[in-house]
């Protein structure tokens, strides 16, 4: 079942002006329910413009978007209901915090949904726990927290709306390795435990390789590739040509291949690399023994 279906979507900035630019150019694709899709692409390739369509922040210049089978812009008065279905975490979301306490800030989304006080309380506590925020932190001011904690509060603010689709634009940008790992694994946990669809925009091929099942590659406002993570990273030369990269492990395997070692290069995670190497070793030893 399609969670998000995009048909012929185009988005033009400042249409009719001399500086009009097409950010998204006649894009069509489907994202299935429960998928974890990574979105990669060079800077200015239209990634952010594309994902802000998923919850109706941007209105398509032309084309249609269906969320869960429903045409998003059929009635523009109902657009708000889609904002609760599709939770969008913007880049550097910590700059959106405004309330006196962490608790109130996380409650902002659920409150806008018109939920009961009891339900809001449950969601805030769950979302905070999900994002690894200590309950003691809930009553402190969000401005007293560290950068990583602020980021987690902001993400919790979106998760508390319990969206069916969670879209994150570079949620780990500017964090230390530990912070990165923490946030992304929590996103993964949310994906697994709630069965929701997750769309993750990232510049880190390692993160994409580690968490995403499918990868969507944007280039000049168009979808250049959309396939399983393995198949996309198997097209390393094309990715490199686009100014993108492949995970470090893949690079090692490409180098090995270049050195004349007959090995598969569709490796993109460490565990899979170990498996492939062991299999290669076994095959080689088996070969010499025979």
């Amino acid at each position: 079942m399609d969670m998000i279906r995009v048909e012929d979507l185009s988005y033009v900035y400042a249409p009719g002006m001399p500086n009009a630019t097409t950010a998204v150019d006649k894009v069509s694709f489907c994202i299935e329910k429960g998928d974890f899709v990574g979105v990669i692409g060079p800077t200015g390739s239209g990634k952010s413009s594309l994902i802000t369509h998923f919850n109706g922040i941007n209105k398509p210049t032309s084309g249609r978007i269906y969320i869960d089978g429903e045409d998003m812009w059929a009635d523009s008065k109902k657009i708000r209901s889609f904002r609760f279905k599709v939770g969008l975490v913007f880049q550097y979301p910590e700059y959106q915090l405004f309330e006196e306490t962490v608790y109130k800030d996380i409650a902002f989304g659920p409150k806008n949904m018109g939920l009961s006080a009891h339900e809001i309380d449950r969601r805030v506590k769950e979302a905070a726990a999900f994002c690894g925020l200590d309950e003691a932190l809930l009553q402190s001011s969000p401005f007293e927290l560290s950068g990583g904690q602020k980021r987690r509060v902001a993400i919790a603010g979106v998760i508390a709306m319990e969206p069916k689709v969670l879209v994150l634009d570079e949620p780990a940008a500017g964090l230390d390795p530990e912070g990165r790992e923490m946030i992304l694994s929590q996103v993964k946990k949310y994906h697994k435990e709630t069965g929701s669809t997750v769309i993750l925009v990232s510049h880190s091929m390692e993160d994409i390789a580690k968490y995403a099942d499918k990868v969507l590659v944007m280039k000049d406002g168009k979808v250049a590739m959309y396939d399983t993570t393995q198949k996309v990273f198997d097209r390393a030369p094309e990715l490199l040509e686009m100014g993108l990269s492949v995970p470090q492990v893949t690079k090692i395997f490409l180098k090995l291949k270049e050195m004349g070692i007959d090995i598969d290069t569709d490796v993109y995670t460490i565990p899979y690399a170990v498996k492939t190497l062991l299999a290669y070793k076994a095959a080689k030893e088996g070969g010499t023994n025979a």
Partner: protein
Amino acid sequence: MLKDITIGQHFPGNSPVHKLDPRIKILLTVAFVIVLFVASNLVGLLCSLLFIGVLYAVAKIPLKTILKSLKPILPIVLFTAILNIFFVGGTPVFTWRFITITKEGIVYAVIMSLRIVGLISGTSLLTYTTSPIALTDAIERLLKPLAKMHMPVHELAMMMTIALRFIPTLIEETDKIMNAQKARGAELDSGSIKDRITALVPVLIPLFISAFRRADELAMAMECRCYRGGEGRTRLKQLKLHASDFVSALVCAAVLTAICFTKMLPVIF
């Protein structure tokens, strides 16, 4: 909605209007504003608007942009027009119960509306065709005599440069924060006035915080590059007047003077 704000926007170009020395442009704009008040007759104001229109055409700024910049002041124009229509005394042309519309009222309303339109389009032309840097450089240069009276002219100009420079940045920032709050279900453009004002709190607080953060960072960056105010500071780009500047200035001055003389014309209305 924020994209409609065109005040302070700059449209780079290569036209004679763009190339004119910014100091002369500022002086001419001031003169134009004065003319708008001196020539308080229909012919004069229409001529002034025509003059500005020609300059817009020379600067190749699309009509759409001008109309867009006029859109936000439409309520003010209407308000002044209505006030004038109903409250200026004179020969009545229309009476209904307590409402009386006079001939003078109509003429005044038209004059006032044209004047406001002229003020906005004239001053917008200056900012459209002059980069903020050139503009503040010129202001600094023009105000230099005041420095002798211990006015912090350079500092004022620097403050203006920074303020102008940060208008687009802050607009962009506001847009981002608004989107982030909308993504959390905030309703920013519907509801009663009270609702809308309270809905702005989640936008204004992060905006102020980020403005202060930016100010701090900028101050730090300026100090790192040894900025210490105006005393003994030289500039990379020296403003120089060319023959073409004098010609343009003279032509514009002549036109503006001519417009002033429309006052002598017999009153048509």
